[in-house]
């Protein structure tokens, strides 16, 4: 009995001590934490790890230069596994930690949108390098994106296909999630407006690996061009199965494919694939060149556009923190909105007109097993 009381009272003391320590933790710790929610395992693991590498690069550099207003930055990484449910749990964890001032992530629109209400309620900035679903930034006041949206990339691709490549009969294959449905919709809408015929729109469920039925159907329809809003694992599976079925269409796809994995897993089946990107390592702009150099020096490999977008997300966030300080989550939002003339690795970025930046895209293609600048 006595033992039990001792245990209970010790617990109560501990809880009380914890409660009083809570609110002052930001000052007491002497550092500032930034949360990163990204898929570090699963089908999108490659992208999540790109995020982690770039964000780490930015933070290490700032810490080496003395931190923000004398405070060191600390990164808290959480693995969302590409699962929307998981990203909500991560959001709740981040919001509950008073030391975390803002969050970078997630990778997919589905995960990012699912977590948005939690960040909005806590007045914590949610800056996603890649989430491109139109509705996400409309879910609240604290959502900022770095990538061009599908509302921008989709019609851009449609103009590329119909006006520049002169393709009139188009089919699409898209992944059936928030992102894929959007990417398909904006492309198809603009392509129709420009006078193209849409021969088929085929969706597949995430996790599906058999595309033979879709391929046989498209082969019969003989489209001039196939547009494929997909990711590398699915895209390369489609192209390999298409090659086996003797189907070799002209393919236009999305910036989502820009990875060395697409080349490794696609082999010669993906030759000729065209995509627009936010970042390309031979981009001559100084901000892009600096990023490429620093990333290569630290990791010994060329960065991709996901790494570049994450680098800009971290860069924007830390620039905002420098401007408004680190004592309030809500102020970070004003800091981001107030940034002017920010030169990122993916081009100039400003949130003066809204929290969706307009971006300049670079056209690239796969030639001889490499990503190269697109030439008509």
């Amino acid at each position: 009995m006595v033992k039990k009381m001792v245990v209970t009272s010790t617990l109560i003391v501990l809880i009380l001590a914890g409660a009083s320590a809570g609110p002052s933790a930001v000052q007491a710790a002497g550092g500032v934490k930034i949360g990163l929610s990204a898929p570090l395992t699963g089908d999108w693991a490659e992208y999540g790890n790109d995020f982690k590498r770039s964000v780490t690069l930015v933070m290490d550099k700032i810490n080496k230069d003395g931190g923000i207003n004398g405070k060191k930055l600390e990164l808290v990484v959480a693995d969302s596994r590409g699962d929307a449910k998981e990203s909500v749990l991560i959001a709740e964890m981040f919001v509950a930690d008073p030391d975390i001032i803002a969050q970078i992530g997630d990778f997919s629109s589905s995960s990012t949108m699912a977590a948005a209400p939690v960040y909005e309620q806590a007045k914590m900035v949610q800056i996603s390098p890649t989430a491109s679903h139109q509705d996400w930034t409309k879910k609240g006041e604290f959502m900022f994106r770095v990538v061009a949206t599908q509302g921008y990339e989709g019609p851009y691709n449609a103009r590329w296909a119909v006006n520049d490549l002169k393709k009139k009969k188009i089919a699409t294959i898209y992944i059936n999630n928030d992102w894929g449905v959007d990417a398909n919709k904006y492309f198809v809408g603009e392509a129709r407006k420009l006078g193209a015929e849409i021969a088929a729109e085929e969706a597949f469920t995430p996790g599906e690996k058999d595309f033979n039925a879709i391929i046989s159907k498209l082969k019969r329809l003989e489209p001039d061009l196939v547009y494929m809003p997909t990711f590398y694992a699915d895209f390369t599976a489609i192209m390999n199965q298409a090659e086996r079925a003797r189907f070799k269409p002209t393919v236009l796809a999305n910036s989502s494919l820009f990875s060395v994995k697409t080349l490794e897993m696609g082999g010669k089946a993906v030759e000729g694939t065209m995509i627009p990107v936010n970042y390309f390592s031979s981009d001559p702009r100084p901000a892009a060149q600096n990023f490429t150099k620093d990333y290569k020096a630290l990791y010994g490999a060329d960065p991709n556009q996901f790494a570049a977008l994450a680098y800009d997300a971290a860069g924007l966030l830390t620039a905002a923190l420098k401007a408004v300080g680190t004592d309030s989550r809500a102020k970070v939002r004003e800091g981001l909105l107030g940034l002017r003339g920010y030169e990122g690795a993916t081009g100039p970025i400003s949130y003066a007109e809204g929290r969706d930046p307009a971006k300049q895209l670079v056209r690239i293609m796969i030639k001889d097993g490499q990503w190269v600048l697109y030439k008509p």
Partner: protein
Amino acid sequence: MPSFIFEQLINGLTQGSVYALLALGFTLIFGTLRMVTFAHGEVYMIGAYVGFEIIRLLHPNFLLALGAALAATAVLGIVVEVLAFHFLRNAPHATSLLVTIGISILLVNLAQKVWGPETQSIPFGLLGRLGDFEINVAGVYITFLQMAVLGVTLLLMLLLYFVINRTKLGMVIRATAQDYEAASAMGVNVNVIYMAAFAIGSMLGGVAGVLVGVYYNLFYPTMGGLYGLKAFSASVVGGLTSLPGAVVAGLMIGLVETFSVEFGASNFRHVFSFVFMILILLLRPGGLFGGREMAHTRGD
């Protein structure tokens, strides 16, 4: 017959064969033990990875990969039987069921640890050496891998049918399925038979894993999930204890899926296949071949 119909027929049969192979495993195990295993999809996944490693590291030979996967999944099947069923013979059924779910989660995580979470493929150079020929039937190219999937599946179905109906082992398995107490009283070592059924069922899963893995050239830890579910459904539609039922249902589901893409919309393919299964079960609640073959007549 227009060539696109023929092409889709081959697509559907290839897809359906895999469901059938996996469904056979479910059916054999359920027919013998009267228990469902939810680790079957993961046994299939392990089989695929074993084949993958053999091809990648040892020698790019299809039969060698199949053999290694057979051996590995037979052992794995026995392990699952011992862990989930042998020691829990007198426990409520739900306990064994939960243990198999536990094993399936364990295997997925183990695969993530060993092979990494991302999708892997056999390098193109090695893949080509597995067999790079194809035949042209009326303008439709049927590849070596498609023929291998169809051929191996057909062969294994016939072999299993022979084993179950024409050999002493098959007779003992059928006897155990009918009444394990009576079989036991007649001198059958029931525990060994359960392990044998599990080993054979798992081997079918392992072979399916290698076939699918190599056919799509995609290996990933969660590859057993959707296939396991589809195959289990095929087994139920086939009547749960009927081996021909499992095969027919598996093939039908593959064909329904494929043709729902050709004539309908691809995003509804799973809807079509599951609606088809529900319809069959509404019309024939016992499944297509329910109540025959390995039918169980235990009087409890």
